[in-house]
Structures are given as C-alpha cells and as structure tokens.
C-alpha cells in the first residue's frame, strides 16, 4: 500500500491507464487507488487552501458575533461560524486521505507557505459587510464549489456536497439581512451600498485570474477536478447576481455593466488584476492580521494541545496495561 501511495512516474502503465479510465468515465478516484503524483499534489494544495479558507473565513465575521444587533442575527452568525469550523474539519480530513498530516497543514498556513482565499484579506468594517459577505462572497463560493461536487476525487466531492448545501443557506441568510437593512433607515441603506462598493470587485476576483493567465486550468479540467474555467464561472456569478442587486436596490460599482442581448449575458468591466496579485502576495489590507490572529490562537493553545496529547497517551498506556493485565488474568 505504501508503494501505491508513493508511486513514481515510472509506475506500471496499467495503473495509469486504469486511473485515466476511471476519470474519463466520470467515476470517483478513492484514497486507496493509484493516482499520479501531480494529481495528488494539486488536490492537496487545493483542498488545503479550501480548508484554510473556511478557518480564516471565520475571522471577518467572528468580530461581529459579540455585536450582532439582534439575538436572531447573533444565532445565525454563531450557526454560520459553527458550519465553517465544521467545513474546515471535513476538508482537512479529505486532505488527510491524500497522505498529508493536519498539523503540517496548519503549520504551513501560519507560516504563510499555504494560501487561503484572498477575499478574507479585506476588512469587515460595518455590520452590512456580514450581509454582503453572505450574499456576494458565499455566492461566489457556491459558483466555484457546486461543480466540485462532481470532482473526480471521491472524498473531496462528498465533502463538497454537504458544504454546498450549507453555503447556499448562508447565502440566502446574507441576502435576507441585506433586504432587511434596505428596508431600514437611510443610514442603514447607505451602509449596505458602501459595503457593496467595497466587496464587489474582490468578489469577482475570487474566481482567480483570467483564463489566458491561468496555466493550470487545462490540466485540472482534464483531471475532472475543475469543470469550468475561471472566466466561465465569473460570468455565471455576474449573471446570477445582477437581478439580485436590482431586487435589493443597490448599485454595483462598475460603469461598464450592461446587458448583452446577443450573448444573453451581462458585460462587465475588468477587475484590477494587479490588486489581486498584491493581495495574493500577502500585501492585502488584512493579510498580516489574519495570519497573526491564527498564529496567536495556535500558540496560545499550545499548552492545551500538549496537555491533550499527554492525557491521551497516558490513557492509551493505561488502557494497554489494563488489557495486558486482563490477558494475564485470563492466562492464569
């Protein structure tokens, strides 16, 4: 089994053929199956990044848990935080089926060697941001993630099914919050518009660079990890969101937005890709704070995790001794 997991390019052609056939037939690759190293590496990177995003993604809204302006909103936010922690855990578990260790992934996150979605490097300045994150950010995440439910790697695909269901719940709740705020005072309406202005472009960038600048897309699509290009998904998101924006009564901050009768789709402006590059490189408004907070929580928790490990090993030893003495007894 170890041999299968560490299979080199020179692995028997038969295994490679079987892998290709499974993927081509839209069947699922499972943890024990042979898979190309590059496929495994791509998945580890993507799933880890996705897991990290769930965990870091708790922070921008986490600040509002103690400040939610009604008990119902507080309950909704708490439930969402709970879902996100849960998603993080499924996804770490999915990554572990590929032979990586969770502690190692955490280490890579807090040392900045693995990324998380750049969207979480923007600050949440008002409570309207909570609604806009639900509506736009979770909305974009769903566009990205729904096709992943059919991803060729089984554990990831199954995790995504559950995650997508909960995400679409979050999206509806975000939209409902914005609808409520837009029925409120003028100051509340201004607060919503301000949040939309700040989150629109970063949301569009969640789909990654434009297709002609996304060299890995073709391979990921061939492997049936990815199903659509970045630009296809971005267009789908814009088309889905525009009617909702009109329904809400907010303006999206893009003068080039216009209905293209011929394409049956919305035309829109070009995001500032240099900004995306800056944020990816760690120069976004909150990169440092997000990682620092994660690292601080991790470091402050070290003594607790050490205690848990020591306790578990003591219990394991005690358990073995108990078993041993029982065996001895039965020997007698």
């Amino acid at each position: 089994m170890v041999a299968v997991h560490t299979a080199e390019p020179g692995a028997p052609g038969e295994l490679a053929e079987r892998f290709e056939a499974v993927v081509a037939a839209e069947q699922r690759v499972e943890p024990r199956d042979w898979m190309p190293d590059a496929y495994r590496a791509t998945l580890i990177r993507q799933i880890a990044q996705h897991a990290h995003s769930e965990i870091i993604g708790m922070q921008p809204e986490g600040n509002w848990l103690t400040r939610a302006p009604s008990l119902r909103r507080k309950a909704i936010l708490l439930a969402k935080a709970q879902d996100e922690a849960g998603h993080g855990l499924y996804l770490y578990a999915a990554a572990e089926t590929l032979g990586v260790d969770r502690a190692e992934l955490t280490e890579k996150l807090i040392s900045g060697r693995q990324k998380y979605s750049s969207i979480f490097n923007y600050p949440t300045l008002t409570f309207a941001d909570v609604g806009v994150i639900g509506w736009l950010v979770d909305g974009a995440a769903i566009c990205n993630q729904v096709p992943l439910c059919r991803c060729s790697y089984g554990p990831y695909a199954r995790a995504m099914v559950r995650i997508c269901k909960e995400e679409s719940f979050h999206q509806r709740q975000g939209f409902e919050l914005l609808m409520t705020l837009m029925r409120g005072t003028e100051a509340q309406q201004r607060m919503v518009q301000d949040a939309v202005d700040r989150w629109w472009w970063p949301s569009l960038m969640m789909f990654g660079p434009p297709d002609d600048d996304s060299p890995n897309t073709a391979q990921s699509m061939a492997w049936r990890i990815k199903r659509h290009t970045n630009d296809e998904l971005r267009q789908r998101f814009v088309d889905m969101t525009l009617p909702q924006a009109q329904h809400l009564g907010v303006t999206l901050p893009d003068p080039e937005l216009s209905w293209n009768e011929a394409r049956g789709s919305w035309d829109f402006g070009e995001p500032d890709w240099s900004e995306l590059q800056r944020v990816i490189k760690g120069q976004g408004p909150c990169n440092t704070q997000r990682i620092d907070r994660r690292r601080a929580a991790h470091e402050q928790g070290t003594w607790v995790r050490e205690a848990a490990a020591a306790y578990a090993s003591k219990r394991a030893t005690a358990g073995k001794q108990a078993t041993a003495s029982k065996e001895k007894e039965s020997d007698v």
Partner: protein
Amino acid sequence: MPETDTYGDTLLCRDLAAYTLRLGDDALVLAQRLCEWITHAPTVEEDLALSNIALDLLGQARVLYAQSGRHDGTGRDEDDLAYGREPSEFRNVLLVELPKGDFADLIARQLVWTHHCLLLHTALRGAADPELAALAERAVEETRYHRSHADRWVACLAHGTPQSKRRLQAALDRVWPYTDELFEADALVRRLAEHGAVASPTTLRESWEREMTTVLAQAGLRMPTVTGHQCGGRRGAHTATFGDLVAELREVRCAHPGGTW
C-alpha cells in the same frame, strides 16, 4: 394553600418575570463570553464545540426573555430585553461575566457553571409554570453535553502536563469566590421556592458541592479555599468589565437608532 391567596397570580407573575430574566441574563452573558473564544480556541474542534455551546445558551436566553416579557406584562420582546437595558439593569450572576481569561479560566468556569446548571434545570423540569418546565426539559439535554465537555477538559488538563494542572488549579482558585452567588437565596428566590415554583437553592448547593468534591478529587485537584465571596450581580452591581460587555453587545444597534435588523 393560604399562601397562594396572599401570593396571588399577579405577584407570582411578577416574580416569574424577574426570575426568568435572571436566567436569561445568565445565559446571554455567558454566550457572549463564549463568543469571544471563537477563532481563538486552541483547536478548530474547540471553536466548533464552543460555538455549539454558545448557540444553545443563546437559544435558552431567547426563550427565557420571551417568557419574562410575557410575565411582566410589558410585552417587551427578546431584543428589547437584551439590547434595551443599561448594565445595571442586568441581573446575571457575576460568574458568567468574568473576563475571558485563558483556556483554563474558561474550563474552570464551565465546570462550576454547567454542574450548577444541570442540577438547576433538572429541578426546574418540575416547575409549576409549564413554559418554564418545558424550557428546563430542553435545557437539561443541552446542559448534559456542556457538562460532559467541561468534565472531559478538567480531566485532560488535570492529568495532562504539570503546566496544565497548575493553570487549571489557578483558574479554579480565581473562579471559586464567584460560586457562592449561584446559590444565593434572596427574597425573590425564597418566595418562589416556598411556593414550589422553583428549586430550592440550598438543595442544589449540597448536590453541587458533592459533585465538585468528586470531580476535583478524581482530578487530583485541590478544593479552593475562599476567604471573600463576591456577589451583587442579582441586584445589578456588576464587575469592572461588564459595562464594556454590554456596550459591545449593543454597539451596532446603538449606532443605528431606529434601525431594522
């Protein structure tokens, strides 16, 4: 029952309103403190567990506030009660408002609180008021999980490393002066207990002390000795950081007078 006559429905309602407000405040304030842990816990599993517990407490607070608002006849809803009162109008015990502290402080508070809470809600299942009894019925289930969460961590920290044991003992010492107030029997509680409307705090106290003795003995921890008990929460005399807690709770709502949420 001659007492019923002198007690009367109006008085009972007023007392029940005050009593459910106390329990509601306990639950909301503790939920608020637990929220401060989320994204700061030592593991993601613990972020999950704490948000779970906070959500249960918040649910209890909402039901209790609704009951309180009905009983007192003011028709105030859960948000009126949660957001519309000054810090000095809150009636929670001081224990639940103590600042976040470290993970040992969290667990020490959860230990004393959840054991008390399970005993209280178990007794309240027999409350004369059917709504209160129903709330207690549900709370018992939830609190059982909260208590086992606390018990597991107490065992783990006590038997983990020397550092974790030392920290837990120090946290227990810090928390203990605030446990007396959990069993305080002021005029309100005495009136309600005499009429069988709520559990007698004296009985709860004995059971709680027995449980604590057992838990601490099993964990190899020392029962803290307390020279000065702290109380005042039930009459609105709160600790230094409580004003900040309430301010944070109301922050967004305050910034938008007349807003809809």
